């Protein structure tokens, strides 16, 4: 029931037939919709629930730290008036938002992200879901995800959420080492991790959950990383997200550490962690379907897939980013400014400027997002939207990396082509489309250098 509707599966053996096309027609590729065609209305909504017990030392997200408080470690914050106030504001934003289409395209995915959404009492989550349902409608079997942190929920709370329609949990475990959890300022310890995994796996009606991990933490060793991956595999989640620690300016970690310098792992070690994850999780039957995402077949995060396919989506809440009618918009990251903005929205004093995101920007988005995935860039549709000559230049730029194995070219059947085939094709411009159909970055080496490769592509698109 939660099978992916999208042909994202990429771990096809070379001679297997193409993946079965979804029953439902695949969504129109948004980038095929450049100037003339309007982009399809959003079928996804992101909801930002910014509350955390405290700010993790590496975090630069728009969050509200509640401060550790009160009686029950699990439900203590639930009654914090700031949460209810915020949800009221959020509901006002939903109410003031005009649906993009009138013919009622229902939401296929809803994602409660944070912050720590699991700190929000289920009744308030319910209120948001109800509002969304009322405003846009929910499809027959939508994917409703929520991020949850160990130590912020018990079995009852989770059951309640599932009762509301939540059917996917993204569990922010991050590490299986007490010391590491403490070092990154997590509000939970190892005991809470094991409890949470127990609660999630035991929960009736919840089949789909993701274990979220962070690699390249300060003082993290290869042994620790192997251990975390082992524990992850043992917990049998349907999905694993492996984030690589980014040292952001303005965070505590930004003051304390320099990337590549002790106690952070060296560039080599950090690359190694990435490769280990790819290896261990693949061995355990997970598909590495996006740079930092792994899943059992059919369990891609549909909501995130929306992003990577460059399709439009609603967003609600502090600092959240929406993509509607070809316009990306980030809401204010400060509560006061966000509240002012909601008010403007309500009185009609704000609307999405039909900003003329040019073809170049559009092409960059498509390349940037699709090359993050194992599915890769669909050259035929790219060529249709942005022209053959750009496609050829792109291929030319990538050619040396096809030879060195960082980039993989595939035919229509997603069979990998030899670098020599690729060369041959480029000699006859007209032939590209007939033979080379997809370009993707290799796993793990190409993924590991994705910033380099994508920025090279940017250089071709917007010289």
């Amino acid at each position, binding site marked *: 029931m939660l099978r992916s509707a999208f042909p994202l599966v990429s771990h096809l053996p070379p001679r297997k037939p193409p993946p079965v096309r979804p029953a439902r027609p695949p969504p129109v590729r948004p980038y095929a919709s450049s100037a003339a065609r309007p982009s399809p209305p959003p079928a996804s909504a*992101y909801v*930002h629930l910014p509350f955390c017990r405290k700010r993790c030392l590496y975090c630069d997200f728009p969050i509200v730290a509640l401060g550790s408080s009160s009686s029950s470690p699990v439900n203590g914050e639930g009654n914090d008036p700031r949460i209810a106030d915020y949800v009221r504001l959020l509901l006002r934003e939903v109410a003031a938002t005009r649906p993009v289409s009138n013919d009622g395209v229902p939401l296929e995915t809803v*994602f409660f*992200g944070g912050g720590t959404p699991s700190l929000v009492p289920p009744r308030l989550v319910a209120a948001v879901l109800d509002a969304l349902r009322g405003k846009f409608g929910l499809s027959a079997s939508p994917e409703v995800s929520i991020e949850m942190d160990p130590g912020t929920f018990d079995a009852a709370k989770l059951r309640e959420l599932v009762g509301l329609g939540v059917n996917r949990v993204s569990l922010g475990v991050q590490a299986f080492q007490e010391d590491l959890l403490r070092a990154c300022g997590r509000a939970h310890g190892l005991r809470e991790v094991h409890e949470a995994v127990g609660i999630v796996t035991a929960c009736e009606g919840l089949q789909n959950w993701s274990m*979220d991990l962070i690699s390249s933490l300060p003082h993290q060793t290869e042994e620790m990383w192997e251990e975390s991956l082992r524990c992850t595999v043992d917990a049998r989640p349907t999905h694993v*997200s*492996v*984030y*690589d620690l*980014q040292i952001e300016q303005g965070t505590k970690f930004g003051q304390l550490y320099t990337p590549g310098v002790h106690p952070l792992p060296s*560039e*080599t070690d*950090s*690359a190694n962690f*990435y490769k280990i994850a790819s290896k261990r999780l693949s061995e355990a039957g997970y598909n590495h379907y996006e*740079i*930092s995402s792994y899943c059992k077949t059919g369990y891609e995060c549909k909501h995130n897939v*929306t*992003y990577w396919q460059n399709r439009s*989506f609603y*967003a609600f809440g502090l*600092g*959240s*980013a*929406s*993509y509607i009618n070809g316009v*990306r918009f*980030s809401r204010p990251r400060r509560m006061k400014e966000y509240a002012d903005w909601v008010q403007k929205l309500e009185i009609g004093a704000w609307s999405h400027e039909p900003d003329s995101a040019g073809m170049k920007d559009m092409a*960059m*988005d498509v390349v*940037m*997002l699709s090359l993050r995935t194992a599915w890769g860039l669909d050259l035929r549709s790219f060529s249709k939207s942005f022209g053959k000559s750009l496609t050829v230049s792109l291929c030319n730029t990538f050619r*040396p*990396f096809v030879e*060195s194995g*960082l980039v993989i070219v595939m035919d229509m059947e997603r069979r990998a082509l030899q670098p020599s085939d690729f060369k041959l094709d480029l000699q006859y411009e007209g032939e590209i489309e007939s033979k080379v159909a997809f370009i993707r970055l290799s796993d793990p080496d190409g*993924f*590991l*250098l*994705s*910033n*380099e*490769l*994508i*920025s*090279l592509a*940017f*250089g071709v698109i*917007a*010289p």
Partner: protein
Amino acid sequence: MAGAAALRRSARRAIRPDEYTFSRTLQHAERLLSSQASPDRGGVLGSELGLYPPERIRNFSIIAHVDHGKSTLADRLLELTGTIKKGHGQPQYLDKLQVERERGITVKAQTATMFYRHAHDESDAPNYLINLIDTPGHVDFSYEVSRSLAACQGALLVVDAAQGVQAQTIANFYLAFESNLSIIPVINKIDQPTADPDNVKVQLKRLFDIDPSEALLTSAKTGQGLSQVLPAVIERIPSPPGKCDSPVRMLLLDSYYDEYKGVICHVAIVDGALHKGDKIASAATGRTYEVLDVGIMHPELTPTGVLYTGQVGYVISGMRSTKEARIGDTLHQAKSTVEPLPGFKPARHMVFSGLYPADGSDFDTLSHAIEKLTCNDASVSVTKETSTALGMGFRCGFLGLLHMDVFHQRLEQEHGAQVISTIPTVPYIFEYGDGSKVQVENPATLASNPGQRIAACWEPTVIATIIIPSEYVGPVIMLCSERRGEQREYTFIDAQRALLKYQLPLREIIVDFYNELKSITSGYATFDYEDSEYQQSDLVKMDILLNGQPVDAMATIVHNQKAQRVGRELVEKLKKFIERQMFEITIQAAIGSKVIARETLSAMRKNVLAKCYGGDITRKKKLLEKQKEGKKRMKRVGSVDIPQEAFHEILKVSNSK
């Protein structure tokens, strides 16, 4: 000018400092200045200029080692004569360029006319017209110096009373001496506690055979002794020679381009008089022009409508570009044939470097900036060249290192151009087996594996003059011999100071020599050099290769015995400055097909953003766009991106350390 020498000597006589006054001069100057506002006053001024026949004119320069107070002294003299107001404006009035003010050096010679009353007649009106021509102190600009000196009959030789004679003092003295000028020694900065004028007198006697009684003692800071200066100029420097009643003939001293006025020429009238409206012709090009405006630098352009024999001033004649105004050319009355005046020693370009736009796209900006700058600095030679690594650019020839530096700085400061310059090189001469010879101004143009045997190579040398406190003689001799120098002279100029002369390959001093010299002598050494002849030498071309591809802009010519060391240094430096890329990079230095140094830069392992970023892709995109921009700023050879800094850094690789 030979006959003038006797005249000069007869003009020397002692004068008393209280023999003149300058209050009348001030009034006169104010009148002149106010006349700038109304162009019709030119005639009035012109008639005033008529009051100054050649015998009432003096043209002189100030020459000195850098920092000995030349510009400050010039300021004081301009104030003294009311040409500029005291305490107004910036100090070192004549140093107009930003680079001059910043570096405390004079690059372009500037001229100013002063009116001065010298009390040997009864009237209290100004009775002398004095032209002061400021000169650059540095040897690179000896071209400018000789240009200035050609319009002078005398020079003040300024020496710091504490520092004594320094390297450039010597070079400049000889330039003036060879031009047959009357030299007035001025021992300046006598206010300093460490001033030792007597010792300086001894040095002047020993080195230049100057009679100690001739030296003036001054402080441009306190004003002490300044009142003797202009009287000495009048008494000891002869008036300009010239025939008042001949058709006009003048020497073109300098020219520059002004956006509003067009080409402005500085001229010294040798014979006759020049009036507004006159038709003049260039002896060099034969072109004729009408004099649209003529006047004096007082110190700003001040129209007078006329210039008379012996006077120095400016002419605007509708020239389109400074290329028409050749320095050293003779301008004369049109439709008359004249004997051209002896021109100047032409500039010799001894240091060459490729200049490329630092950000690939703005070749046009650079081209425009270079054109503008060379409009006013004819001493730079410019030819287009192309580099595979750097694209389109220019090969520029400079008089010397400082000249090159100053040119770069002016490009950036005055014209906003960002440049990458290649390793400076000198003009080598290579002779092939068949006897044919080539002059190589760009190492990249020399074949790495020539089909023909190279029979011989020559490189230019210089005679370097170094003055140092005697305790540093040892290390300096070491340095010079490391730089393949040969000692030509070793003397003491006084009890503490030694003078060394070395013949050195120019190549050895263009990179890092002066800094090294300064650092081993705690800053005490002064250094100057003059061009000398070519010498035969064992030279090789060294290529730098990245993944087997030669980087033409990094090719260099080195002495065979130093190739190994220079190669190592270059390769190590590059390894530091080239960033890791998606593949391994080998960096090699090679002579022909023989690799003499090699480093490998391993491939980048990881550059990925694996972060939970919700739908907010804009920040991530910005990051990638920034990365893209970073790549764009790089220069590419084969598939290797080279940061621009790498080109700057390898300039710093010394060739002899």
